[in-house]
């Protein structure tokens, strides 16, 4: 039976890493002794941040052990350990690139709405801004007063990130710009010299300043490096200067080679390929002639002729000479492109890179080398995996850019999950737990699909230290349409404010999510407080809430009941009576408050002024009858709330008297 084979990359989210606690929770080297005492470690990972709570725990409950186990004070402590998160010196870089990321998404969204293809120049501009941020970060790190091992590592990482990003930019963006030469060669050489140490002008000056120039051991390696990197003008200057120190024969050839080097043809967008090739052939023939002439003089006692011959061989594109002299595969690839195939386009890179890389031991390649080779070979899925090994920031933003350039579909076919969504999600997860970067993290989640669900889960767990932050989180949730998160956050805040005794704020939060049950319960609490204290103190609470335009039966009840009291205080008894009756008739009062309302009517029924008409009195009596016949205790243990039967009897008598008076008037 054939073995089932999968050809899809499954991204391993959890790279293996061992973290040691320093100092440890038990003495070093005494692990076995320690565990024999029924002890082990237990931990719990924080749901949002990069923190872990670690504590010593018993393997078995102490009650189940035959003998008593000693308890040590140091075992009673829970340790909170921070796993490596985003270092402080990265914060400016994260924020800068987040700004570029947002702008890029906006450009793509706008183009999507207007159905206009985004120009390569727009993408190139954004790509350049990303690179600018990387270079700025390298500069800031290098300027740090205390260059620790960590900072040195960061500098290396950013150099690698820049090299990778720049190469992708020249292959997919720069050479696709309309109106420019599409040859990759000048861009590749620029990339090579910018990202990998180029021969320094200071080194050249130092070598030239040497007294015995012809015998200087650094001279010719430097010249060969100049040739390999295409610094032909500098090379020509050096050759002319060196020529003065050499024998007559070597000096003549040095001058000739310098002259030829100066005349190296340079392509331009205005020149046709045919014309450039013709010029190149003529230049190459001149070099060929010089190479033949110099090699005819070899072997020679003149020590300068042989290295000069090598320089000429490199420049005429001799693959063997280039391979022999190039220290790295990048140097060799650059020299081959420059001198053998100066009009190559990007599609020539995979085969040429394959030939060059074969000469090296792939096992010795760094992650950067592997990423670059994968990119040059158009092995984009592998490329993304290596990018992730360099830095999660790189894989996330690279996948995003590749998607915008429309080259990510190859990877989509190869990965088990959508790589852009996956890497951006992973980056967002890294940031969202950071106190300063939670907002940045949420933006990386905002892609739709699974990411939105994850975003909602995280948004609900962001600590809300202040009301302003809560509003920011709610704003983001609304922006991304996370209705469920908005609902949960408001309920959570409402409960928090309720617990704190901030009833107005609690009602406002519950009102946002139309949680009428909770609002009703808070109103009941306000009513109970009134019954308990006898003081109508809830005015400011409901005023604030009503000012925000909230409408709820119980709130209306509390408002009208307050109005009733105010009218009564102002001795406007008819108005007060009307108010009381309207509360009952509109049935906005909670059932357990009806008895209190009826008792409140007694002074109006018994007053000097006739407040209630016969019909109105009958309405009141009907409510009293319904209350007494009600079989179910509505709230608490009694259907009458704080009212006792005696008070209700007084009410009944007062109603009867009022009814009689109303018939007489």
């Amino acid at each position, binding site marked *: 039976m054939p073995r089932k084979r999968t050809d899809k990359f499954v991204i391993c989210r959890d790279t293996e890493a061992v973290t040691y606690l320093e100092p440890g929770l038990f003495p070093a080297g005494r692990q076995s002794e320690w565990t024999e005492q029924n002890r082990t470690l237990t931990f719990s990972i924080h749901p949002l941040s990069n923190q872990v709570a670690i504590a010593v725990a018993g393997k078995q409950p102490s009650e189940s052990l035959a003998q008593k186990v000693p308890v040590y004070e140091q075992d009673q402590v829970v340790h909170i350990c921070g796993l490596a998160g985003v270092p402080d010196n990265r914060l400016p870089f994260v924020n800068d690139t987040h700004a570029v990321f947002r702008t890029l998404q906006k450009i793509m969204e706008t183009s999507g709405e207007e159905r206009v293809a985004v120009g390569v120049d727009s993408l190139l501009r954004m790509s350049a801004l990303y690179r600018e941020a990387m270079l700025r970060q390298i500069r800031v790190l290098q300027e740090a007063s205390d260059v620790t091992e960590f900072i040195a590592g960061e500098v290396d990482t950013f150099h690698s990130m820049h090299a990778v990003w720049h190469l992708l930019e020249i292959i997919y963006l720069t050479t696709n710009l309309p109106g420019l030469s599409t040859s990759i060669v000048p861009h590749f050489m620029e990339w090579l010299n910018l990202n990998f140490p180029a021969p320094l002008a200071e080194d050249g000056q130092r070598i030239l300043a040497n007294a015995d120039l012809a015998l200087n051991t650094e001279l010719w390696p430097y010249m060969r490096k100049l040739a390999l990197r295409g610094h032909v003008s500098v090379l020509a200057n050096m050759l002319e200067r060196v020529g003065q120190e050499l024998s007559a024969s070597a000096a003549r050839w040095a001058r000739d080679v310098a002259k030829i080097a100066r005349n190296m043809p340079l392509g331009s967008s205005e020149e046709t390929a045919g014309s450039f090739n013709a010029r190149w052939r003529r230049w190459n023939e001149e070099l060929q002639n010089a190479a033949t002439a110099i090699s005819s003089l070899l072997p020679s006692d003149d020590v300068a002729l042989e290295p000069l011959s090598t320089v000429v061989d490199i420049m005429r594109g001799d693959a063997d000479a280039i391979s022999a002299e190039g220290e790295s595969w990048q140097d060799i690839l650059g020299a081959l492109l420059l001198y053998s195939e100066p009009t190559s386009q990007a599609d020539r890179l995979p085969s040429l890179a394959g030939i060059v890389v074969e000469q090296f031991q792939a096992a010795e390649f760094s992650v950067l080398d592997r990423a670059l080779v994968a990119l040059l070979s158009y092995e984009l899925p592998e490329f993304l995996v290596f990018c992730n090994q360099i830095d999660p920031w790189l894989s996330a933003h690279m996948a995003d850019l590749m998607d915008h350039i429309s080259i990510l579909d190859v990877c989509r076919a190869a990965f088990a999950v959508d790589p852009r969504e996956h890497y951006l999600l992973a980056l967002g997860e890294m940031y969202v737990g950071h106190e300063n970067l939670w907002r940045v993290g949420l933006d990386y989640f905002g892609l739709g699909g699974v990411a939105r669900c994850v975003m909602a889960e995280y948004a609900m767990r962001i600590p809300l230290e*202040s009301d302003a932050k809560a509003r920011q989180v709610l704003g983001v949730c609304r922006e991304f349409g996370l209705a469920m998160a908005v609902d949960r956050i408001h309920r959570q805040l409402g409960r928090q404010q309720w617990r704190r005794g901030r009833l107005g704020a609690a009602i406002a939060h519950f009102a946002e999510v139309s949680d009428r049950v909770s609002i009703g319960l808070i109103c009941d609490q306000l009513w109970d407080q009134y019954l308990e204290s006898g003081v109508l103190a809830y005015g400011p609470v409901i005023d604030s809430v009503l000012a925000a335009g909230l409408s709820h039966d119980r709130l209306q009840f509390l408002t009208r009941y307050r109005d009733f009291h105010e009218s009564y205080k102002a001795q406007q008894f008819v108005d007060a009576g009307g108010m009381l009756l309207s509360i009952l008739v509109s049935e906005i009062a909670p059932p357990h408050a009806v008895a209190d309302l009826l008792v409140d009517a007694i002074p109006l029924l018994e007053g000097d002024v006739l407040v209630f008409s016969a019909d109105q009195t009958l309405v009141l009596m009907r409510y009293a009858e319904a209350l007494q016949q009600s079989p179910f205790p509505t709230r608490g243990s009694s259907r009458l709330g704080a009212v006792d039967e005696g008070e209700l009897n007084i009410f009944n008598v007062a109603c009867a008297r009022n009814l009689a008076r109303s018939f007489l008037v």
Partner: protein
Amino acid sequence: MNTLQVQPVARKVTSVCWLPPRAGQAYTDTELYFVTGSSARHKELVLWTTRNPDFESESEPSAEEKTLATLVAKATHDGDVHDIAVVSADVIATASSYGTISIYDIQHNSLKLRESVTAHRFSSGEPAVSTALAVQPVNSSDAEIASCGEDGRIAYVPLARLDALQAYEVDSTVVTGVCWPTPAQVAASTRAGQIKLFDRRSPAEVSAVFADQTKNYSFECITSHPSQSFRLATGTDTGAVLLWDIRNPKKPVAEVFNVHESNVWKVRYHPTDSSKIVSCSEDASIAITQWSSDKLSATREMHHLSGFFNALSIGCFDVCPFTRTNLLVAGSDSGNILMAKSESTEFSLF
């Protein structure tokens, strides 16, 4: 849209204020000082210095001169810094997320905590965030600080004796901003969209309440006109700036400017030209709005300032009142200090 200059400082800047210059002593006219307060991971106060643009040459600035501000001193702060107010050239007051009001001395380029007091607590005993504070506009040492908080209280703290604090519950939601229109009057904005006025002599009673009857807003901040105490301005959670003329209680909202797309975190009248209102917002921009009390000649110009490398909320700003050149400093959630300068004659920016 004009551009703000950006300087990353790797801390979330939530409050900023200029210090008055003290020529001949610690400060010279050629250098200006401001203080920023930060939140989240770095709960700090930082004293910065920047060149006075009035004395800047027109030649191309050197690399060193391109730095917007240089750090002079910093001090840890108990909680997130929610607001800073200048008391005098060498004294500032801060409001913290732990509900404390702190007084800091600025001496010999250092920030030193003098005293602090907890002014805001929930009835459960839990500390409540102090959302804003304002110093009573009197030139004497017995001035008071009014601070407001999420506990719905306004606390009055005499500068000379912080322990003689008085706090009054004035709202059941969050009191988001506070200001002193006159030395005897305090105005507060609430989350429920109300402005409440208090007479300092009877601080427990609300002397007037104003709200927009046409629309429900939620206020984030409040400020008063520098010279006309009946004019107030509030910022809302929807990005609007409301101008109030409280002489007309039936229609107190004089004008509504929809200048931002999201929460307006701070609003101020321009200190030297009060016909302009400056506001900053969650939408990562600062708006300068021209308004006029004379409606006939009213010109309604609006300018926005933002920085490309500043994508997140601008939560605070301050316009320097001591320079001829308009100079604005702001702080953002992206961990940046932002700055804008323009000649007084050039209205394009201010």
